[in-house]
């Protein structure tokens, strides 16, 4: 299918030296079944897919590895440290993930509050510094705070990932100004991670000029995840294209589109 971006001059998304054509990154959690997951990810056009590090089920009858359903040669696996509440835990999970042998990228999460899943920015910075030192390409999940984003960049993060709204909330982009400010001030890619609920949220988010968007629940928890993945793909492309096109200025008065001259007496 032809895409709008083909008529717009855009550069690919480059994170930590790796280049991707798709600006939509997707998660692999919470799907009703693995077949729906693989079809949805295919429909999303995403190249980067996130995965979590968990214990192997010792009961071999229950195969749970996501790699049985996703070919790691076709997707770039981005391991997360979801579920970690301390810098030490996040570092431990990141090291285990890297040992799986796919790449040295990590989506770093250090969660500070169970109810809101808001990041613990102090722990995040601490873990980011250690992991960058160890050669990781750190993509840091953070809030919309500019100063934290700047410090994460200073710490050597490969990308900074402010949230649109709380993880799994589907509330959309609550703070466009902050996200725009972060994008304007940072040099590393800014990927909005978490909170989008439907295609218009993805579109509005990309219209802010951010480099990409990462989502999981909005696709996985849709009535039809495959159809929603398709919608998200189009919305991400549309939002990016609109950003590059440059929107018209907002005005609070009407300006007619048709000429005033030439009206009949």
């Amino acid at each position: 299918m032809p895409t709008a971006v083909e008529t717009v001059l855009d550069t690919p998304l480059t994170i930590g030296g790796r280049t991707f054509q798709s600006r939509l990154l997707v998660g692999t959690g919470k799907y009703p079944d693995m077949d729906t997951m693989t079809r949805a990810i295919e429909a999303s056009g995403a190249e980067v897919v996130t995965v979590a590090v968990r214990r192997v089920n010792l009961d071999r009858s229950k195969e749970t590895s996501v790699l049985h359903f996703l070919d790691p040669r076709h997707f770039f696996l981005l391991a997360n440290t979801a579920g970690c509440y301390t810098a030490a835990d996040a570092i431990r999970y990141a090291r285990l993930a890297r040992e799986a042998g796919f790449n040295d990228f990590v989506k770093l999460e250090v969660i500070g509050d169970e109810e809101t899943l808001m990041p613990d920015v102090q722990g995040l910075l601490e873990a980011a510094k250690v992991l960058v030192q160890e050669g990781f390409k750190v993509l840091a999940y953070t809030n919309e705070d500019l100063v934290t984003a700047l410090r994460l960049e200073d710490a050597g993060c490969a990308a900074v990932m402010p949230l649109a709204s709380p993880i799994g909330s589907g509330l959309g982009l609550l703070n466009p100004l902050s996200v725009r400010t972060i994008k304007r001030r940072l040099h590393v890619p800014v990927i909005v991670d978490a909170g989008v609920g439907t295609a218009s949220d993805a579109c509005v988010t990309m219209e802010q000029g951010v480099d990409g968007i990462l989502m999981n629940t909005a696709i996985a928890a849709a009535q039809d995840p495959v159809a929603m993945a398709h919608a998200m793909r189009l919305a991400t492309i549309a939002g990016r294209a609109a950003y590059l096109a440059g929107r018209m200025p907002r005005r609070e008065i009407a300006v007619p589109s048709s000429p005033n001259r030439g009206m009949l007496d």
Partner: protein
Amino acid sequence: MKQLVDVVVNGERKRIAQGATLLEVLTELELDPRAVVVEHNRRIVRRPGLGDVTVAAGDAIELVHFVGGG
């Protein structure tokens, strides 16, 4: 018959032959060493070294892999 010792694998108590290597533990559990990452007493043991590290009573072993997640 080798003596069995108690170790904890992924939080579960398991009886393992004394002096078994981590590679043997994986074989015993029918796990493909290429599909798991092994942590032994909080230290990651890389795949080539799995046959060199032996387990002792009370050891904690974590076997992890990738699952679906955001």
